[in-house]
């Protein structure tokens, strides 16, 4: 069956190639044309994902090869060693032909002739050109100090800024059984946790899988009380960078979290938890409320039911914010922090760029993000939907058996996510609909100069470490929260460079987008 398909694909591709060559016979026969008649092999750095390892016989790459003559040879590293491998490759200029790097590395090392300057080839790459025109942010992130373009940033979210990743989880079965109303304000949230604690005295209702990061306790509550997501971020009300602890609401957050901690509404080990401990406590009902990736809702429910709580059910509760603070969540960023680059040492530069251009075309992105029509997805009402039998987590099958939506290979997670969300269960769709009102487009990333990077490297880590430690001391009651101690806390942060960093971010933001 597969072979037959492959053969037809090949024949069609050959016919197409004949037609194409027929049409262009008048023009010069450049060696840089992509065609099955001129096979070429490119190496490509990847890692094996947990869902399934990288395979050489994925059908999409067979079809791509049949159409373009490009054979991709994957170089597989272990996920854990990926970062080191990449750094060594960059440092010794031995990158694979195609490689995914942080756009920062592209900007930094591209001008040193580690990566190919795509700008020199834009004329022969219409899709690439259109891509940069459509996404000015991607162009800004790809542009090195010499003005060259070195990466094709991976798209993470839809251009409208509607897709999002995180929701507040709580135990639906418990809420239904005990008739508890989901909270909508900070005060109600506190009462909500208190009610849960009364009914389940052995539990610590609130848990968080980390203290910082997108789902971290301090990030989440920082946003709820100050409107700033993380220590440093764009404040959507002013469209300027802000440092959350400078906001007057930050002290309220400390007081609030301290109250949760001392009344045992928050897991006492919240600052030390590993991912596995978090999962264990959520699955067994030791904790009942958390903020996490919405994609894991159904798999957590299944696991918990298998582990013996038959009525276990999770559902989203509304997002909330303190009074006077905008109740929002940033959408997935439109453009990600990583991008595809081509090694400057690639044998056939023109064809490498053309291949990248092909992967950015409608047909190419469809292969990498959707797969093959009729096999991995079908068109319903003119819009693609993944095969129903792939279930609610289609990425498992897509990655394992098809190489679709595979990290380090795909150029658009945005496209995959859009299709995936269209095929979600009614429950997940309902959650999406309920959260839609809170979602605002994610801030654009900034491009830093060398000096700014130096500043960030020398200061940011210290500031972050200090904040994490000090906030934890406040929350756990080790340091009392009052005006004097809070002022000390701010002074110390300033001493470590919090002001310089804030200025730097704002300057860089203005420079990058001319605001």
């Amino acid at each position: 069956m597969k072979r037959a398909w492959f053969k037809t694909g090949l024949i069609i591709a050959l016919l197409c190639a004949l037609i194409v060559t027929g049409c262009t016979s008048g023009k010069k026969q450049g060696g840089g044309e992509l065609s099955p008649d001129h096979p070429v092999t490119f190496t490509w750095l990847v890692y094996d994902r947990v869902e399934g390892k990288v395979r050489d016989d994925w059908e999409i790459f067979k079809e791509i090869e049949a159409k373009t003559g490009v054979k991709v040879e994957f170089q597989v590293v272990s996920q854990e060693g990926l970062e080191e491998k990449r750094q060594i490759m960059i440092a010794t200029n031995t990158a694979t032909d195609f490689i995914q790097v942080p756009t920062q590395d592209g900007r930094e090392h591209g001008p040193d002739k580690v990566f190919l300057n795509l700008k020199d080839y834009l004329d022969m790459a219409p899709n690439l050109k259109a891509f940069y025109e459509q996404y000015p942010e991607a162009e800004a992130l790809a542009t090195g100090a010499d003005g060259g373009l070195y990466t094709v940033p991976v798209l993470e979210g839809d251009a409208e800024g509607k897709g999002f990743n995180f929701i507040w989880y709580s135990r639906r079965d418990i809420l239904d059984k005990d008739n508890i109303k989901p909270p909508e304000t900070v005060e109600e949230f506190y009462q909500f946790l208190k009610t849960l604690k009364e009914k389940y005295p052995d539990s610590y209702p609130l848990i968080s899988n980390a203290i910082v990061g997108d789902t971290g306790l301090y990030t989440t509550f920082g946003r709820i009380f100050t409107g700033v997501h993380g220590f440093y971020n764009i404040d959507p009300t002013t469209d300027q960078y802000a440092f959350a602890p400078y906001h007057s609401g930050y002290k309220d957050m400390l007081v609030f979290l301290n109250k949760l901690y001392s009344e045992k509404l928050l897991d006492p080990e919240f600052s030390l938890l590993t991912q596995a401990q978090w999962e264990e406590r959520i699955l067994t009902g030791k904790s009942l409320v958390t903020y996490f990736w919405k994609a894991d809702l159904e798999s957590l429910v299944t696991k918990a039911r298998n582990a013996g709580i038959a009525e276990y059910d999770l559902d989203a509760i509304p997002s909330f914010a303190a009074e006077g603070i905008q109740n929002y969540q940033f959408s997935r960023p439109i453009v990600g922090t990583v991008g595809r680059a081509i090694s400057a040492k690639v044998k056939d530069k023109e064809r490498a760029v053309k291949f990248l251009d092909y992967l950015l075309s409608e047909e190419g992105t469809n292969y990498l993000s959707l797969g093959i029509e009729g096999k991995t997805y079908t068109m319903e009402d003119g819009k693609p939907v993944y095969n129903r039998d792939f279930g609610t987590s289609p990425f498992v099958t897509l990655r394992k058996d098809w190489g679709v939506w595979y990290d380090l290979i795909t150029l658009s997670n945005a496209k995959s996510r859009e299709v995936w969300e269209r095929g979600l269960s009614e429950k997940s769709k309902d959650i999406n609909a309920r959260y839609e009102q809170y979602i605002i487009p994610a801030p654009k990333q900034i491009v830093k100069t060398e000096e700014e990077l130096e500043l960030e490297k020398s200061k940011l880590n210290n500031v972050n470490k200090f904040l994490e430690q000090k906030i934890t001391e406040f929350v756990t009651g080790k340091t009392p929260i009052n005006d004097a101690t809070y002022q000390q806390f701010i002074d110390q942060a300033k001493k470590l460079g919090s002001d310089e960093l804030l200025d730097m971010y704002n300057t860089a933001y203005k420079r990058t987008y001319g605001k």
Partner: protein
Amino acid sequence: MNKQASIASRLFDALNVIFMILLMIVMIYPMVYVFSASISNNALVASGAVLLWPKDIKLIAYEQLLNNPDLWRSYWNTIRYTSLHTVLTLIATSAMAYPLAKRWLPGRRLILMMAAFTLLFSGGMIPTFIIVQQLGLLNTIWAIVLPSLISTWHLFIMRTFFEALPEELEDAAAIDGCGSMQILLRIVLPLSMPVLATVGLFTAVNQWNAFFNALIYLNDRDMYPLQIMLRNILIAGTNVQGEGDLTHLETLKYAMIIIGTLPILCVYPFVQKYFVQGTMIGGIKG
């Protein structure tokens, strides 16, 4: 008086036994737990319900691993790398240590100083990588074996041991017509079994556990040793960054640990005495 002594000694015995049992529990419990977790239901392991004995026995983790051709290939690679590395290390180290043990060797001090220098300073990761690359060793077994062939530390242990051998034995062999090579092969090495066993064992264990060289010098999954696979499975799900990062079998980790440590567990009791001897060898000075 007598009775008192025996009470004290009994008390000591009792405490001793209790202490040893506690120590055994501390050592054995993790192994039992890992084994139990590896054959239990994934959901029960993830939710922390498995504490000592397996619950709802499921062999799916082993099925997945044993049916994974990568496991056997990695195993074979590790065995290959370990045995070749050990054999070559013993040959090269003894060949270098023996002349250095001879006081009449010209430039002996200088060579020793140069060897000792590498104990303190190394070229760094990237220059080493570039050398390995320029020698064309990347993605071959030699990239794993050659860069760490002679450990200075082992060299010194062996040299000290050779120095302690009575010189009269070698003189006698020389009088009977042995050349230097024959003396080394027929007299010195057979007498040096303890040090060879020690150095061999240390090298083998290090190589069995090594992953970093494989990580940076090898590009082909078919060449990877077991440790890379082990680490890959162990870190799954520790850092959730996107869809699907939680979809792994927790039990797979435990099954992989069992499979990875089984051979060492089987061999260790029998070679343990060499470890004990080995730690003392460096201290002997004639």
